[in-house]
């Protein structure tokens, strides 16, 4: 692993998964790939946290899972965002923006 890659902050993984699924339904591997690509390889998703996170989100009812066919014609479990998950995403996004703005301000003035 290169040093430029950052580990995900605790708790932000859930938000990223929700955001990724807000665009379209995806399977676990797809979610990990997309986060990596969109972040230009800065964010590495550790599989060890990805799947427990998915199961947790599913348990909370924010995402739903169903079996479908993958791009290479394999049976895969696809996750999609539920209504409740969308609301949760909005809440988390807003929260994140508030905090990151606050951190920015500190970094600028300090």
């Amino acid at each position, binding site marked *: 692993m290169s040093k430029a890659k950052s580990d995900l902050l605790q708790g932000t993984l859930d938000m990223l998964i929700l955001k990724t699924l807000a665009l379209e339904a995806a*399977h676990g591997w797809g979610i990990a790939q997309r986060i990596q690509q969109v972040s230009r390889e800065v964010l590495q998703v550790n*599989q*060890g946290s990805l*799947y427990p996170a998915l199961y947790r989100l599913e348990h*909370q009812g924010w995402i739903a899972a169903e079996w479908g066919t993958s791009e290479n014609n394999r049976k895969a*479990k696809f996750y999609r965002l539920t209504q409740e998950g969308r609301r949760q995403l909005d809440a988390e996004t807003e929260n994140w923006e508030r905090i990151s703005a606050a951190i920015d301000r500190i970094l600028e003035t300090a």
Partner: protein
Amino acid sequence: MQGIRMSLRSLLFKSRAEREMDQELSFHIEMQTALNVRKGMSQEQARTEALREFGGVEKFKEQCREAHGGRRLEQLLQDLRFGVRMLLKQPGYSALVVLILALGIGANTAIFSVVNGVLLRPLPYPQEDRLVVLRQSAALTGQEDVGVSPVEMADYRARSRALADLVEHHNMSFTLLDRGEPRRVRTGVVSWSFFDVLGVKPILGRTFRPEDEKPGAEPVLILSHEYWQSQGADPKVVGRAMEMNDKTHTVIGVLPPVPRYPTEDEVYMPTTACPARSGEHARTMRDARMLTAFGRLRSGIPLAQGRADLAAVFGQLRADHPEDYPTAEGFQAALLPLREELVREARPKLLILLGTVGLVLLIVCANVANLALARLLHRQRELALRTALGAGRGRIARQLLTESALLALAGGAAGLLLSIPALRLLTAFAARFTPRAYEIGVDGTVLLFTVAVSLFTGLLAGMAPAFSRQDPTAMLKEGGDRGTAGGRSLRTRNLLIVFQLAASFMLLIGAGLTLRSFWELGQVDPGFRPERVTTAGLHLDWNRYDTEERRWVVLDDLLRRVKAHPGVISVALGSAYPLDGESTPWTNELLVEGHPPRPGEAAAPVDLRIASTDYFNTLGIPILEGRVFTDADHADALPVAVVNRSLAHRFWGDRSPIGQRISLDGGENWRTVVGMVGDVKQYGLDSKAADEIYRPFAQYAIGGGNLLVRSDLPPVTIEKLVRDSMRAIDPEQPVDGVRTLEEARAESLAPSRLTTTLLGVFAVLALVITAAGIAGILAFSVSQRTHEIGIRMALGAVPGDVRFMILRQAAMLVIPGLALGMAGALVLTRVLSSLLFGVEPTDPVTFVAVSLLLLGVAAVACFVPARRATEIHPMIALRSM
């Protein structure tokens, strides 16, 4: 909702959920492998890289399962299954723990059943919180309850605005003739609306109506459920005629099985049917206070308002009749909730017992925690393995707590079984202090309590092992049972032992103090000699023997017949006998010639007793001065009296009472004191002797009393003799209550004996559990230190040194335990003072004795491990390293 559905799904379709997880993960690996191949790796390399990147599959799966809600429920089931398996694999340990828990939980269940039945449950009457007792007291003369007179009843009833109704009760003993033998029955004499106020509906017939209480009404009876049952439970009993007081009474109803307050009456009659209650004196004298008054507050009226109302009414009565409510006696009237009143005497004792068993339970918890900690060390390898296989710290803790809770529930079930036989003893105990004792039983609340206490115990005892810090890798590396992981846990275990010792010390002090006061009570000189004296109750019919002369003829005849029997040393009659728990004081105001009461001074009552000529020598009461009664003191002779030492001292100080004159009727008639006798503990060995005055039976022939027979004959022979003699005179007059005075004396000690037994049993239980705990921890420590001891012995230590080492270790536990216990006991035993007699709560003898006992038991507990330590062979110990 979603969560629960998923939980259930993953629980029910476990294999499917697992399969899907496998599929999902292998899909991931496949995709990653494909990506790696695209990046230019070989197929083989790409797959290995994908797997490596993924990390530990099993651990990760477990995390997924955790995230999936269903796991929690399933884990619980799994933990339970595994727990049961583990516990069955170590039956000895499990049985020991279940036994200890059963004792602790059983004791708590039993005591709680009593507390629940007596203190917590509402009375089995509708709107029981509105029921009150109206009680008059004269605090300054030491009388907490002087009763209420019929005249006062009428006043309170007419003037009170807060009470919906006020009813009276008093208790009589009458002879009932119902197709055969005469039987004495305890009779409740009540207002017609008594049962309506309580809200009791009859199961047969009806309760009283206003016309039943009119003067001249046909006499009627209501049977209690218990009496009806004991007489064959005849369903057609309503309408049956029974003879009582020479009148025909008709049964009109049978009560349901409700607790009988305030006394356990067998039958009930309206007030007008009672000869005493309808007599001239009772009906007209304001101070003929013979009744207990029960009321029901009007709905919407709080107790405080009822009390204010009563205070106002009482103020009016006192203003109207100042001579009947002397302020010098501290005369007062109060309204008390019925429920509180019924348990007033029992409450402190039950709370002390509850505290005691609570302490026992904590000792049990500490002990089981200790056992579990020791057990844990033997399970290090298993737990380490499970950790290595992916079980999280929380998962292991949960598993250990589950095992502990399982044991506690098993202990609870066994404890419940143990508590049931104990309840009989406890009911007998409680019955001495409250009429509610017969409501004691195991009900839903008790079961709930047992389950709650079991779970609480299980979790508390499981806490220490579950959260003890374990280092799995260290365990695996060392690979043995003798790991170093014990350091911190040993400290926890030592603390638990110190706590157990302290708590046991406190319990032993409690038991020791009550034991000492029981012993002190037994040493009290009762003032008479109960040996070889048998008593029998006599009750002449009020109507047939309506004059003193007629009564005396019968009683004198009876005395002569019994005395004529060979083997009878002496025989006497008394209005009561000492230490008869049933008798109530018969008090009278006394005037002493030359001692006019100062204005405003309380004319404190004296105890009045009627005694025949041989009363004093039959009972062995010492004659201190003058003489006692002789045949010359007959009805027409000079009225005489005998006083006891307390009374003589009170009125005449050191002067001789002989020849002094006293009056019992306000100065109308005077009688001469002819003798002084010793004080007798009439009401209990723990109470002070009252001021007593004796009158000769021949000069005041009451219609009943107790025959007292001193004889070497067995009590059954005497009973037969008395019954035969009475039957020969009049076959319709009953003889009852036959018992020896030794029995009466033992009976009067029973409350103290029961309290002592209960506290003693709990204390010994605590002591045994604690001693086992000490032995356990020392044995464990010896096995841990085998190497060290081996080295010491190899270097020249002799067995004495090793023994000293172990004893020193024990002392480090016992001494702080004792100190802590002593500090706790000094604070806590104060609550016991109400139970103690003749001994201070801080009694040094008890404290020293208990300390020695605990030290002794601790020494015995050390003995086996210490000996095992000295028997360690240095070579074997060293080789096993």
